[in-house]
């Protein structure tokens, strides 16, 4: 059997970094091939080359036996390569059908297209209404739009970039069912992920990338997840450690918190309630777009709520603005590092002033103490092992992992009583992620209450004492994290959105 896609010695360098270094592998027709690697290992660059978004510096590709050098995505699509992006390439203000049409070379008339969308989405168990605005869809539904956009073009190779990061466990099952069906029909799938168990469940072959190079290939079903992890990271990482301790007094209490969204496609919060005690980590899971940003804004004070909806040590603070909350000891680290937690073009020293001014006394009656700010920035850099030439460097010059360590460190070193973090390790390499999780646990150990909002369920199970799920702006009742199964968590997360019973059953059938 000849390979569908052969990649031979692909190399792509950016200034200061070789994203792909002599990468070679093959994909057979109908094969589900995993591309495994950490953040920054070069997976995205590689698939962008296959999809024609980036041109390789050197190396060759062969597709269906012919030389393959797509100058642009259009050519890749015409050749039979389709791609589902990690950060969706969707347009919120346009309808599902319009979004699908934009991804096709030669879309049929709108009415025919709508019918085709309905037909294909039913066939593959991914129901969709072509007339709805994409902005109103959940993350899982948005992914369906992307997948259907690809399927309508009858691809020979489907590239999926981290598809499950926005799905509930049940939705993952359904997706896998769809992918297996496609694979049986002869469509090859290039599946990019860093989630090992998923790869073991789905993929026939795996190519493992580290720092731009192929370090190993394996058959995932025949090796352990731990083995693959070691190949991927290059060393074995210790799981974060913590001692058992009795939680103390209630530091943060939220009751009946409701909030209208600030943006047209935002999620309203509905009657949210929880408590966090000193020494405790409360994990809040949920698929992106279910109110995480809004919840963080309400807790940080960026969005003000009813007076009594949030209480700190029994004091109502729902309508207290951000800086007054910082004075009390409630600190936050938002998800978006560049532009929210930190100003991209400002130096690390200037970014230290952003949140640490009041608690670290970085101003005197309005006049800023720059040397104090600089020394605080240096402390954060040193204590949290932030790799940077110094505190005068602009925030945007740091890698994701280093900037995240800086942001988290900036808050933790202010000795908060309550720390709220949203997606603390999103897009961060494994060793930085481990360090951040350890720091969160150490903070709780020291007597702080921590709220950790995350989409990464493995992360939440690792750090949380109690777990609750955010779904369409509502929060489930917290449950002890220890002993929760993925199935139970999935149901807490709202199961599969808008799925028919039949599809659920189909999803559970062995493929």
């Amino acid at each position, binding site marked *: 059997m000849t390979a569908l896609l052969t990649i031979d010695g692909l190399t792509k360098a950016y200034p200061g970094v070789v994203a792909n270094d002599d990468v070679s592998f093959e994909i057979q027709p109908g094969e589900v091939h995993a591309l495994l690697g950490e953040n920054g290992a070069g997976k995205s660059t590689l698939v962008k080359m296959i999809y024609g978004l980036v041109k390789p510096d050197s190396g060759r590709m062969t597709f269906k036996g012919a030389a393959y050098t797509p100058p642009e995505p259009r050519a890749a699509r015409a050749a039979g390569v389709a791609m589902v992006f990690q950060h969706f390439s969707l347009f919120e203000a346009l309808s599902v059908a319009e979004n699908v049409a934009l991804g096709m070379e030669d879309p049929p008339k709108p009415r025919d297209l709508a019918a085709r969308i309905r037909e294909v989405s039913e066939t593959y168990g991914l129901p969709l209404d072509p007339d709805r605005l994409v902005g109103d869809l959940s993350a899982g539904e948005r992914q369906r739009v992307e997948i259907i956009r690809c399927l309508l073009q009858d691809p020979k190779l489907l590239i999926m970039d981290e598809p499950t990061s926005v799905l509930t466990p049940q939705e993952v099952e359904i997706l896998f069912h769809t992918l297996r069906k496609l694979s049986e029909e002869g469509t090859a799938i290039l599946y990019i992920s860093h989630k090992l168990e998923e790869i073991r469940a789905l993929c026939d072959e795996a190519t493992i990338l580290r720092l731009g190079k192929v370090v190993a290939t394996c058959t995932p079903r025949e090796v352990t997840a731990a083995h693959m992890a070691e190949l991927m990271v290059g060393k074995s990482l210790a799981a974060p450690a913590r001692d058992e301790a009795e939680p103390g007094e209630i530091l943060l209490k939220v009751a009946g918190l409701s909030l209208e969204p600030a943006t047209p496609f935002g999620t309203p919060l509905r009657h949210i309630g929880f408590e966090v005690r000193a020494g405790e980590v409360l994990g809040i899971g949920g698929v992106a777009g279910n109110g995480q940003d809004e919840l963080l804004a309400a807790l940080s004070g960026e969005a003000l709520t009813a007076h009594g909806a949030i209480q700190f040590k029994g004091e109502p603070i729902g309508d207290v603005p951000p800086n007054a909350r910082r004075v009390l000891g409630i600190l936050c680290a938002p998800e978006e590092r560049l532009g929210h937690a930190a100003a991209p073009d400002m130096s690390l020293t200037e970014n230290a002033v952003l949140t640490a001014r009041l608690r670290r006394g970085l101003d005197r009656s309005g*006049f*800023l103490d720059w040397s104090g700010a600089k020394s605080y920035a240096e402390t954060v850099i040193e204590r949290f092992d932030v790799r940077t030439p110094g505190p005068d460097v602009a925030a945007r010059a740091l890698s994701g992992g280093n900037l995240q360590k800086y942001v988290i460190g900036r808050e933790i070193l202010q000795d908060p009583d309550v720390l709220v973090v949203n997606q603390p390790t999103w897009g961060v390499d494994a060793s930085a992620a481990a360090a951040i999780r350890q720091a969160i646990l150490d903070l709780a150990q020291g007597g702080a209450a921590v709220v950790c909002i995350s989409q990464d369920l493995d992360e939440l199970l690792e750090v949380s004492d109690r777990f609750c799920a955010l779904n369409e702006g509502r929060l489930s009742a917290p449950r002890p994290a220890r002993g929760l199964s993925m199935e139970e968590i999935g149901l807490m997360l709202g199961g599969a959105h808008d799925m028919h019973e039949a599809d659920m059953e189909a999803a559970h059938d062995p493929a």
Partner: protein
Amino acid sequence: MIRLEKRPTPSRAWIIGAPILAVILTMIAGGLMFAILGQDPVESIRVIFLDPLFDERFAAFSRPQLLVKAGPLILIAIGLSLGFRAGIWNIGAEGQYIIGAICGAGFGLAFYPSENLLIFPGMIIAGALGGWAWAMIPAILKTRFRTNEILVSLLLVYVAEAILAQAATGFLRNPEGAGFPGSRNLARHPGTDNPEIIAGSGMHWGVLAAFIAVIAAYVLLNRHLLGYQIKLAGEAPRAARFAGVNPTRLIILCLGVSGALAGMAGLFEVAGPAGQISIDFNSGYGFTAIIVAFLGRLHPVGILLAGLLLALTFIGGELAQLMLGVPAPAIQAFQGMLLFFLLALDVLSNYRLRWKTAEVAS
């Protein structure tokens, strides 16, 4: 093909170098423009940039004019730069300048013919308040109704011009002026005049105010929390909210300060160099100040230098008109060109140019 590549950290060299290179390129392009108009390009550039300062025939008159013209430009531009840094676009300074002048002049004329020493300070305050109030219209509409401040502040310039026409021909008209439009002459009446502080230097109270504004803005932006918040709001609005910056307060503050400074500039002008409220006493300083603010990189010291340079082009332009017959509007086009070159070169402080290497895949 040239490709742009984002720099990890903005280049300090280019932040300073770009305006200088822009001035040089504008001289070249401007020379070309003058050549098309049938002038000797080298001669025209010399008349505009060098003769006002160094030619013995003109320098005695021109040098003081430099401060007279740079004063209002700098004063207005300093105010605008605070807002521009915060992403608040007050482009109606011309209107605030006019209203400030009318209010200040109205205050002074209300006490005519008194020569009380408190009248002039009162006029300054009235001028600042007038400009402030005029700028509060877009500020309040933006904070209350999210109305675009660019359009409102600009449209209000036309409203202010209509009021100015009414003031000059109606409620502020000189009762002893034989029916001609225009107010009493403020500059020739002790008590309402804005005199030169040092005779023959061009340095009137407005120029002094401009220098004070430069220093205050420098301290504000580099040392004070408020300046930090202004920069933060402009660079990363979401981070600013997170840092506890109240956007409403910032909008009111930035528009208010720029309006007050523009209003003050208007009063200094009408009580000094212009002398009276007339239909066209305003000479577009409010718009030119936008160029000054950008050319000075929204930085106080840069604005000081840019204000002097633009003042020079005004004086040199008049001289070129007189000596060479270069049409008056040429200088406005010239100033616009300067801004274009600056904006074009701006890219170099945040991006590096790379010659695109031959693509492997074609």
